[in-house]
């Protein structure tokens, strides 16, 4: 499943955007995820607190994720604990959620870390 992951990060200047609802980030490892996330933040000039990035870890031993069944479960899990987004979305990928759903979860994650309040 992960073989199909496509990341759009890596460029500092956006070359265009089409809302293809494809996955944004590289979930092969927590390091690759953070790297792709930081590239995205830089690329799109997001305002994200460092703490929001630093707290993201590979909570592979977390028991919370074992109860994730539906898209709403994943979505709520990210809202409740953005620091576990990597594992939750990785799990969602493993569970076979569609690319559009993965994209939606990534959007939830981005909203959670995006410093949208002034």
């Amino acid at each position, binding site marked *: 499943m992960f073989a199909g992951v496509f990341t759009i990060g890596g460029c500092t*200047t956006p070359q*265009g955007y089409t809302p293809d609802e494809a996955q944004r980030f590289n979930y092969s490892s927590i390091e690759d995820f953070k790297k792709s996330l930081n590239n995205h933040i830089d690329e*799109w*000039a997001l305002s994200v607190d460092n703490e929001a990035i630093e707290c993201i870890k590979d909570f592979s031993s977390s028991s919370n994720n074992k109860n994730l069944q539906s898209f709403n479960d994943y979505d709520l899990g990210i809202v409740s604990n953005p620091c576990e987004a990597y594992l939750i979305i990785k799990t969602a990928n493993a569970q076979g959620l569609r690319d559009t759903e993965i994209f939606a979860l990534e*959007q939830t994650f*981005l909203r959670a870390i995006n410093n949208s*309040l*002034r």
Partner: protein
Amino acid sequence: MPTSAAPATYVSLTADASSVYESSNDTITLTAILSKAVTETVVVTLGSTGTATEGTDYNSISSITIAAGAITGTTGFVPLNDTAYENGAESTTIFISTVSGGGAQIWGQSVTITINEYALNSGTTRIYDASVASTWAANSEFDNFNGDGATSIQNPYEVINLHKAFGYGLSGEGQQIAIMDIGFATDHSQMSDKTITTYGTLTTASDSGYHGSTVSSIAAGDYDGGITVGVAYNADLHFSDFSQKGGETSFPTHWANATAHASAAVAQNNSWGPTNAQIDTVQNFAASSSVSNATALAAYFTAGGFTSNASTVEAYVESLNNFQNHGVVVFAISNTSSLTDADAIAGLPEFFPELSEAWLTAINIEVAGAVGSETYTLKSAPCGQTKEYCLGGDGWQIKGAAHTGYYMTTGSGTSFVAPQISGAIALLAEAFPNHTPEQLTDRLLASADNSFFDHTGATTFINGVEHGYSETYGHGIMDIYAALQPITSSLYSRSIKIGENVGESTSHTLEQTYITTDPSLGDALETGLMGVHGYFFDSMNGEFAYDFSQHIRHRLDLIPVVNLHKTLGYLGSGLNIHQTIDVNSFNGRLHDQALQIGGHSITATYGAPAAPLQSFMGSFNALSTDESMYLTPFLNDRNYGVGLSGSYQLDKSRLLYGFTMPMNDNYYSDDIYYAAARAKKSYAISYEADINEYDKFSVLFGSSIERGSMLNTIGHAALAFDGITSNTSYVAINGEKTIGDTASVRGVATISRTDTVGSASTLVNNISPATSTSFGVIINKAELLNSNDYVTLSLVQPSRVNSGNLTINIPNRSSFDGTISYDKTSIDLEPSGRQLNMGMEYGHRVSKNFALGIKAAYISEYGHRENSLNGHSVALLGVFKNFRFGAKIDQNIYFRDRLLSGLLTYTTRF
């Protein structure tokens, strides 16, 4: 005069007026008076105290120099006009601070001058109450806004002059503010009195997230004994959550629908943003990617987690544009101080210019230091490209509501500046209910404090109003109080608009709009307009209520003071009880030789009244203390032009007739000291009968035609009488009867009726027929107590209007669509009082070379004003050989000052 022991040489101070309008361009003369002349120059230094500020409300007053040998010196008191409303009037007491030279000393006199504000009020019919503002500034809920541990000395609310807006009684009553945010606490004490309308699902405030609660408490938090108070504390709220799109297809769709749902809001507060990307970043992206602005913005919104596409962004923009039909959109700029431009969503008007009409962005400026020594530190991204619609406020370390109940928080950010602006919009909407959102926006921008930074450009608003800005600070720090004042420019001052609609009206300058009334109308116009409020417009079409009676100015009547020189002229020679001066050859004849036709003697005249008027007026009683018995609006003029006069001699009588026509119909004099107004055409005929050598009688019929005035009453600008012609028909009688050998009685009376035709294209609606009268009686008696004395008594009622009405259209506040309506106010032209002038003179020739006399004049209800001050003048006079001397004391009828003066002459023949 001093009432206690005075120094040998002292200096006192007087003023020739006690009040002045700040916009009048009038100068009050301050006079320093030495009790006696000295051989050195005396310099009188003046000080001042009071509510008016020297150098701000009036020009700095220079010292007064009294030249050696002189007893007086003067300087001018010049009021300064400004755009600030100072609660009606200010006053200053000017006193003698020091005196140097000539050994002169201060005698402690001072003068108090009131500087009247032309506008009664600003914004609405509410009256500004400075004490209310001060009370608010000290109020704990107001004061608590400056957060716990805040470094600011000044309360950020005071920085924007919110307490002064409260001084007008403004509270946002009847207004609604839309808050799009996250983390609302509808159960907070700050929201307890609110009507809150919501759209969609709201994220409820928690102990870790209450941003929307804080924002809404700043915009409109209750004043109810809680911790803080909101800017528009009586405004209602509309809540929507930018992060909760629910079942809607995209976030911009949700934002668009939420915006549309707030259809009654006067402001939409946005203390959030889906992207932190700068405007120029997104612009470059659109250009480099060859995509539309909507597509570029959608990309950035989506990248921030807010899934969008071009069409939904466009729908959001359309909804914002529609919102601006009734409200102002306020966006907080990013707090990232490293940015060099505003963020993209705050700068949406840069992508969609149709949004620029009612859009404001907010930056955070920490204002530290005390008043007068402030330092300003930008704590957010700069205004950048939004500079022309960007305002600042102090959102650093301020307190607002947190989650439920009474929980409060102290925070910083543009998030907490934006609701100050949104609340200010609600206050302005309350003050200017007919303003469009664009007008409200412009008022805030054009009145902001931009004094603390260098300007890199200036926005030109309507009617030439310019206001400087910079890319960093935009137009500066919002000043709500200044926004409530009339905003004027060098090109456009306060004005009265005449027309059906503001946009298609004729403007007249407020200060140039006035009526100068003839003394015969007394206080009728002023009284009739007392309490009537009109509205004037400032440069930005803000409407301000004011006292309409302030348009009335009075032409001053003569005050019957004793004329020492004139009285001394005849005192020594005693009384001739027959003072009639026959006018057998009248002035102004173009040729000495009159044309004789039948019994008629006809001549052309120039620059003089017609013969009947000359004869009537020329029979002036030399002993009368009161010249006003002949001063009527129709008998007197100063521009007679050319005319033709004739006479027809009968046995013991004669007939006089004539007319005059002004050379310049447009001539008028508006000098308040002369009963001269518009040039008039005059027709007159009189019959004069000599009953015997001394007893005479004459009757005068005439017509006086004025164009653009009525009974010498002249309107200007929005109150001009242009187009109105008034015709005054009058009858005047003049008679003298000898009683025995030592007494005579003399009487003069006039009655007139004035009709007007035509109409003015001004606020003057109609003038109904008016009637007026005057009379005077003089009794002369010689040999009263002995063979060498005499007495003269006089009683005069100067010309007075008895009936008639003037109807004026008083402008109301215009409606939201600019329609102007008017209230017709009919003014009774009869004044409240009846002026009577009483005079008495007694003279006694004690010997061939010595005569003494006393003369007095008393005036009651001066200016036909029921409760006016009374004035008097008393003189003692004497003649000894070639010396003539006299001293008198006049009670100044205007200022209640007494003036002592004297005259000594010596006459000799060579």
